[in-house]
C-alpha cells in the first residue's frame, strides 16, 4: 500500500542522501526527477503539528541538505500521496525548478529587520503637529478631528522618513545581493523586513555593510539573521505567494506576480 510522504525540498542532485533523517526519525530519500531530486521522508503521526519543536526540526532538516546541495525548501507541511506523486509534482514544474536551483546555487539567504528604537514619529523629527490654541474653544468633535488630523500627518511623515531610510539601505546594499524580498513599514515599529540572496563568499561583506549602517542610524535597531536556505526565493505556483525581485536579470516567470508588483 502506498504511503504518504513529506516533501522537504527540491535539490540540484540525484545523489542518494546518506545519514540524514526526516522529522519522524526515518531516512530521507532523494527521488530522481531528471537531473534534480525531490527529497522526501515518511509521514509519521504528529510530525506536522505546527509546534515549536517540529518547526525547528524541519528547519534543521533543510539546513542539513544545504550543506550538500543547492536547495529549494518546501513549505512546512507539504505532503504527497506517495513517492510517485511527489516525483510527479516536481516533474510538472521541472524547468522552473531547474532555473530556480541555478539562481540559488552557491548562495544563501540573509534576513534583515530594521526597527525604530522609539516612537517613529519622534524619530523622524515630525511628531504630531501642535496647533496653537485658538481664541475659539473647540467642541469635543472638533478636538477629535484635529487630533486625528495631527496623527495622520505624523504617520505620513514617519512613512516618508521610513522610505528615505529604506532607499539609503537599498543603496548601501545594492551591489551585494543577487535578489531581494522587501516589505517597507509592515507595522508601525518595523521599518523594514527584508531577505537577500547573497553569494556565499560575500556574507561577511554584507554583515560589515549592515554594521556600518548601524553606526549611521542610532535611532534604528538592525537585526541581521542567517545564513538561511533560500526560503524567500523559491518557485511557487500559487498566485498569492511571495514576490521576489531578482536583480540580476532573473526570470520573472518563476514568480507570477513579480511584474505586477513592480512599480
Amino acid at each position, binding site marked *: 500500500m502506498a504511503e504518504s510522504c513529506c516533501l522537504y525540498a527540491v535539490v540540484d542532485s540525484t545523489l542518494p542522501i546518506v545519514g540524514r533523517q526526516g522529522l519522524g526519525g526515518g531516512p530521507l530519500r532523494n527521488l530522481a526527477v531528471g537531473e534534480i531530486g525531490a527529497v522526501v521522508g515518511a509521514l509519521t503521526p*504528529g510530525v506536522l503539528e505546527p509546534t*515549536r519543536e517540529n518547526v525547528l526540526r524541519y528547519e534543521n532538516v533543510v539546513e542539513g541538505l544545504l550543506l550538500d546541495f543547492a536547495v529549494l525548501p518546501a*513549505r*512546512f507541511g*507539504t505532503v*504527497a500521496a506517495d513517492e510517485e506523486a511527489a516525483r510527479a509534482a516536481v516533474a510538472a514544474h521541472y524547468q522552473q525548478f531547474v532555473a530556480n536551483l541555478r539562481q540559488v546555487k552557491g548562495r544563501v539567504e540573509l534576513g534583515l529587520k530594521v526597527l525604530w528604537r522609539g516612537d517613529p514619529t519622534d524619530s523622524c523629527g515630525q511628531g504630531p503637529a501642535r496647533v496653537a490654541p485658538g481664541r475659539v474653544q473647540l467642541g469635543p468633535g472638533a478636538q477629535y478631528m484635529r487630533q486625528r488630523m495631527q496623527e495622520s500627518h505624523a504617520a505620513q511623515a514617519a512613512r516618508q522618513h521610513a522610505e528615505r531610510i529604506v532607499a539609503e539601505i537599498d543603496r548601501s546594499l545594492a551591489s551585494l545581493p543577487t535578489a531581494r524580498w522587501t516589505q517597507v513599514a509592515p507595522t508601525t515599529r518595523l521599518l523594514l523586513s527584508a531577505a537577500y540572496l547573497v553569494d556565499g563568499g560575500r556574507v561577511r561583506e554584507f554583515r560589515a555593510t549592515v554594521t556600518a549602517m548601524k553606526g549611521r542610524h542610532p535611532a534604528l535597531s538592525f537585526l541581521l539573521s542567517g545564513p538561511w536556505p533560500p526560503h524567500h526565493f523559491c518557485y*511557487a*505556483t500559487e498566485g498569492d505567494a511571495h514576490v521576489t525581485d531578482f536583480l540580476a536579470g532573473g526570470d520573472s516567470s518563476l514568480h507570477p506576480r513579480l511584474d505586477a508588483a513592480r512599480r
Partner: protein
Amino acid sequence: MAKGEGTLAEDVTLLEILDRVIDKGVVIGGEVTISVADVDLLFLGLKLILTSVERAERLRLGPEERLG
C-alpha cells in the same frame, strides 16, 4: 548554525524560522497538498497556503469552521 544578534536572539531566531518555514518555500498547487495536524486538505482543492501559525491552528478546527 547561529542566527540573530543581541539579547533577543533566541526569540528573533524562532520568529525568523516561523516566518520562513510556515510562510515561504516551494509551493506546488494542484499536485501535492499542504497539510498540518494530519488534516488532509485535498478536498479544499489543493490551493491552500499557510501564511501563519494562526492559520495553521485554524486548520485544526472542524470541517464546518474550515469551510465557513
